[in-house]
């Protein structure tokens, strides 16, 4: 991979980001990735020598919601960080040239960095009727996407549409929309579903790659475990009310004003893997359940059909005050084996990272002994009713990594 630019820290400094802000960013990334705090210096060191990674950002059957999400990235200043880490060589919503000159920008990057650019895909890929439901420059999007993904170092599918076709693939859609994994099964692929994805997870994924030279561990659906390894229900700030049997039963009622559980209003948190409760959106301002509306399950496969009607409560009525039963709801709905393997994958990933930290960080023993956040099981013991899982992974086992 050609590295035409100076170190990232130098560039970031040139872009006016202070050292302090840079280290804060590194610490925030360590937190987002559920790594011990001792990893922050390593992240900072890695970024100091990182090049600006060329990025081709493709948009197919999209609403640009993930692009807008990218614009909301924070810590440090979004403009400087994006200009510093990535070279956004092709992005229709942002780039200066149009028409043939725009398509030339994509071709230039593919020629200049063969197997050395990251392809980001936003939107579904329509394959019905040979792809005529989305064309760019007179070519079908499916052909453009396949060629660009084939030549990429890796591909990141942002949002639910690039994950599995998303909204255009919902029941009734005539365009044959699919996600990246079905268009190019051989792609080195990270999936960041969500409608839209949380940009903090995109930034953390890229930082992980630059820091460790590999992509973060993922679940069987290719979703990074640091972001998609836990049920929303298990991280929810309204969880205590679920345990107490305190539910919102009408919009604006006493329970609504007092932050009670939204289960009876159709919340899909017990069925949904994502880090929304901890990452939140818009610089940590809020997330749907905090503000009073249930989760719609937008990080899950085929959620437009599987999670609707959105206001119908989940089918298994939970007995009160048993944490185990709450997890069973999720396990029943998402499939017990997959859920348990995710849980083991998280543990394996954390162990692996701690082993790595023992090599990398001198004198960090005390810090390393503090368990990473993802492994802290204080409120979530393994579900008693779950089927048996795989063997406990060893330190060199990547668990459910692709």
């Amino acid at each position, binding site marked *: 991979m050609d590295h035409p630019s100076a170190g990232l820290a130098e560039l970031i400094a040139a872009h006016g980001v202070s050292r302090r802000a840079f280290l804060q960013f590194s610490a925030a990334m360590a937190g987002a990735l559920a790594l011990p705090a001792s990893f922050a210096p390593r992240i900072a060191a890695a970024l100091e020598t990182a090049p600006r990674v060329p990025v081709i950002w493709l948009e197919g059957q999209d609403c640009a919601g993930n692009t807008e999400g990218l614009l909301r990235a924070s810590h440090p200043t979004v403009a400087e960080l994006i200009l510093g880490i990535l070279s956004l060589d092709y992005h229709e919503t942002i780039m200066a040239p149009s028409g043939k000159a725009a398509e030339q920008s994509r071709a230039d990057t593919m020629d200049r960095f063969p197997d050395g650019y990251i392809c980001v895909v936003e939107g579904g890929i329509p394959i019905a009727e040979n792809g005529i439901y989305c064309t760019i420059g007179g070519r079908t999007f499916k052909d453009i996407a396949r060629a660009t993904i084939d030549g990429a170092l890796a591909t990141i599918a942002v949002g639910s549409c690039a994950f599995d076709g998303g909204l255009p693939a919902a029941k009734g859609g005539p365009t044959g929309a699919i996600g990246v994994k079905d268009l190019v099964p051989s792609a080195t692929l990270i999936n960041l579903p969500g409608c839209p994805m949380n940009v903090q997870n995109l930034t953390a994924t890229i930082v992980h790659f630059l820091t460790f030279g590999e992509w973060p561990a993922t679940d069987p659906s290719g979703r990074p475990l640091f972001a998609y390894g836990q049920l929303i229900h298990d991280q929810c700030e309204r969880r205590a009310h679920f345990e107490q049997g305190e539910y919102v039963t009408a919009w604006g009622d006493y329970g609504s004003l007092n932050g009670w559980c939204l289960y009876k209003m159709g919340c899909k948190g017990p069925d949904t893997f994502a880090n929304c409760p901890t990452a939140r959106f818009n610089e940590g301002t809020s997330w749907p359940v905090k503000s*009073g509306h249930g989760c719609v399950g937008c990080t899950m496969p085929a959620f437009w059909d599987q999670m609707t009607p959105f206001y119908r409560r989940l089918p298994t009525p939970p007995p009160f005050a048993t944490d185990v039963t709450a997890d069973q709801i999720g396990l029943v709905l998402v499939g017990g084996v997959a859920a348990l393997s995710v849980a083991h994958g998280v543990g394996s990933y954390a162990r692996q990272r701690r082993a790595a930290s023992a090599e990398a960080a001198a004198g960090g023993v005390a810090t390393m002994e503090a368990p990473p956040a993802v492994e802290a099981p204080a409120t979530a013991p393994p579900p008693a009713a779950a089927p048996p899982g795989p063997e406990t992974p060893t330190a060199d086992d990547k668990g459910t990594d692709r």
Partner: protein
Amino acid sequence: MTRIAIDPITRIEGHLRIEVEVQDGVVTDAWSSGTMFRGMELILKGRDPRDAWVFAQRACGVCTTVHALASVRSVENALGMTIPTNARLVRNLIAGSQYVQDHVIHFYHLHALDWVDVVSALSASPSDTATLAQSISDWPLSSRSYFAGVKAKLETFVASGQLGPFANGYWGNAAYKLPPAANLLAVAHYLEALDWQRQVIRIHGLLGAKNPHPQTYVTGGMALSLAPNSTTALNARGISEIAALLKQAQDFVDKVYIPDVLAVAGFYKDWAAIGQGIGNYMSYGDFPEDNSGQPSANFLPRGRIMGRDLSKVEPVDHLSVAETVAHSYYTYDGGDDKLLHPWDGQTNPKYAGPTPPFEDLVGFDKYSWLKAPRYEDQPMEVGPLARMLVAYVSGVSEVKAAVDGVLGTLGVGPEALFSTLGRIAARAIETQVIAARSAKWLQDLDDNLGTGDLAIADVSKWDPSTWPSEAQGWGFEEAPRGSLGHWIKIKDQTIDNYQLVVPSTWNGSPRDSQGRRGAWEEALIGTPVNDVTQPVEILRTVHSFDPCMACAVHVYDPAGGAGVEIRIV
């Protein structure tokens, strides 16, 4: 004669292709082609009407929130719900902050590069830039050393050899008229606006849980937990945080955006006579200031201006809206030339363009995934210019004062508004007016909560068993890009038909059954093109409409013949 195909049109939302014919350096004909289709209207059929807004909001992530609002209004209209005061004001605040943030992003990040030469900024004197900045505004970031820092950043970026999104731009084209200092000023504000937009949209985080795609709407009101003294709901502290963000938004608009628009416009006054378009302007009106549901309650009024006649405002009735698919990739049972009201609308996709890969649309009668909406069979322009004209003639005092102020500063009359530059000016004026009004809506909300009224939703018709077996409704919204309507038919508690007629479908419409062009097709006629390989002037007029194609879907005519040179640029 030269025919130019530009595909993709970038710095918009979605997928747009423009083809134009150029003769003697001027556009003589134009075709607008939406090149992506998803099938939202088909996907919505048979679903729970209360779910519709979650789906419909995904029509667009740039004009996020607007389809959610139009959708819940359509269901509320069908079922006869009246939302409470708190919900009305929260919706106004979400929609108002969307205007402010989205219009600023449009100017700096989607449109500015048509007017600002980034490479020229490299030769700017920081001192001259500081002098210029201080002459147009008292915005504090205006020192020589500040602009020297911005210039150094730009130099470092260019020296890296990776120009990212600025590679292959039309830099150095003779159409760029700004002096280097003005270009550097604009580059500085491009970067400042990037930071500003993510901060001010935290208003959506507080009221809507997240942005893009806020998630606190429900049919009947809002799901937002809102109570001044609560520890868990959005409380008095949250409201004061919104007030601070609104102030931050207003400051940037008053001290950066407005002065920049006026400064840039001063160098491009010829564009006040280019891009006139069809001259019919429509607004549904929006921002209700009481709970009556009457059009008269809207802060921005409903109405039409026809044929550029500023002496009167004509009425608007949604029953006069209809769509044809004569030149669109759809069929209608009973003939594609028919005009169908959206309640009876049909979405039967049938691609009828060239087989990809293709070079041009020459010879294809149907050429777009956009339908062609018409009002009383007339093409209309919608958007900030239409809204400001309707409000101006209707006598809305805030709008009248702001419009007269801008026209006075530029030394032009109201006729200058019928242009590419007029659309840009109207968008800026509207941003200023709505930013100021949002502070009032927040005060109204605070006052209403202070009376002890915490009602946030009408839940009397939440249960589908309370609904009639059949109902139909219309949800209107003035989105940042223009008049948006959702039409719903409900049968046996599920969606029987759902149609969206959105701003960019009006503005980016293909020809209708009578061969009349849509708004930006018509506006392109007469646009100069000094270098057909660098169609920056075409982008100026198209971008002045702020196209949004993902919303719109749901440029050809074989007039050329022999002797036409076709260029893909």
